[in-house]
């Protein structure tokens, strides 16, 4: 497992630079109103359908949720982009026993209320049009190991174009509860309900 070697200065610089890049690539980045609980770390569970998802996690952590970003990445992906290791990237290898170490590492990070860990519960790239979110079992283990107060947040990012030729991304954020207080089955149900809500809200979004 590759632990994060997060350097605050580089991470902040990267968040500022990426916001500039995103603003030029996207027509709009719309974050639905959401306030994280004070005194809680954040486990940010995101839908995973594109190259951009991790960078959006960084954007949300720095500009909207006001936490230090850490992000769980597949080991082969992180090895190819070791620079991301300096911005909070740590690895997980789903085919190895080291996976448990990565989950424990993520849980330890979440004991600090200033931290935010981005995890993609689907574990693979799935279409943006999917109506169901499959949450992998590892999430259950991760949550069980969190000792400090931690808020679980589901972020559903959806792409639309409308009048522009540039894409717009809409982030629908939902509070899934506090780690340790929500059973895994209940968490999966909540995430899927929130995903359905997000799809409905997306149809009514202003453009």
């Amino acid at each position, binding site marked *: 497992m590759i632990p994060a070697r997060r350097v605050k200065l580089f991470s902040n610089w990267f968040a500022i630079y990426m916001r500039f890049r995103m603003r030029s690539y996207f027509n709009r980045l719309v974050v639905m109103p959401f306030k994280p609980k004070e005194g809680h770390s954040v486990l940010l569970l995101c839908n995973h*359908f*594109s*190259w*951009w998802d991790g960078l959006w996690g960084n954007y949300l952590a720095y500009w909207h949720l006001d936490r230090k970003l850490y992000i769980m990445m597949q080991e082969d992906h992180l090895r190819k982009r070791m620079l991301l290791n300096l911005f909070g990237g740590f690895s997980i290898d789903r085919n190895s026993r080291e996976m448990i170490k990565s989950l424990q590492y993520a849980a330890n990070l979440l004991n600090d209320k200033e931290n935010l860990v981005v995890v993609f519960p689907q574990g*693979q*790239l*799935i*279409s*943006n*049009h*999917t*109506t169901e979110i499959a949450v992998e079992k590892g999430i259950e283990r991760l949550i069980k190991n969190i000792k400090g107060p931690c808020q679980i947040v589901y972020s559903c990012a*959806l*792409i*639309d*174009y*409308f*009048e*522009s*030729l540039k*894409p717009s991304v809409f982030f629908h954020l939902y509070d899934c509860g506090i780690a340790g207080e929500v059973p895994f089955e209940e968490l999966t149900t909540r995430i899927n309900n929130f995903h359905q809500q997000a*799809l409905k809200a*997306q*149809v009514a*979004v202003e*453009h």
Partner: protein
Amino acid sequence: MIYPKKNNLFKWCVHVYVRWLANRNFHAINFNTIEVDKNRSVLLIANHFSGWDTIVLLWINRKLFKKKFHVMLLESTAIKEPFLKYAGAFSINKTSRDMIYSLDFAAELLDDPENLVLIFPQGKLYSNMVSDIVFEKGIIHVIKKATGSFQLIFAATFIECFENLKATANTHLKNDINVNFNNIGQLQQAYQQHYDNGRQQQIQIVK
């Protein structure tokens, strides 16, 4: 009402521009190959989520249908983008009595087997995430008014990102549709079925 204009130089410029736009913004434009009758015109009905849907279908027309492309646009769009009339665009104003002339003109175009008429019966832009398709009534007027033999083709386009920076457009096409629709509800239901099938195929893509 704004009619399409013939100017080979402008037409060529529009096609070059569209090809450049598509190559610059899309990783791939995928579609299923269907049989197209050379001796019959094509009435193409599609979902409307951005300006890209027209560009994607113009691209598919060049690759598959190989007909003279015509598209019905809102008058406000046709005024804003005057060059589009050289690419086969004609306008419709939903708030004016002129609307009937636009629908009649679309039906007349279908008399010529070399023509393709693209119409977005949703009448305005909707999210690409929409699950229920709602059609406006005008399209039934076109189908009933068209005296020539034409083939009705459904297109449902979905945009995905996956591991590429550029988006991928997946268009699901369906031909062999019986055009004897008595009312808009029947047409809408037939299209909805095709749209749901396309969306279902889309959801099953895992990378």
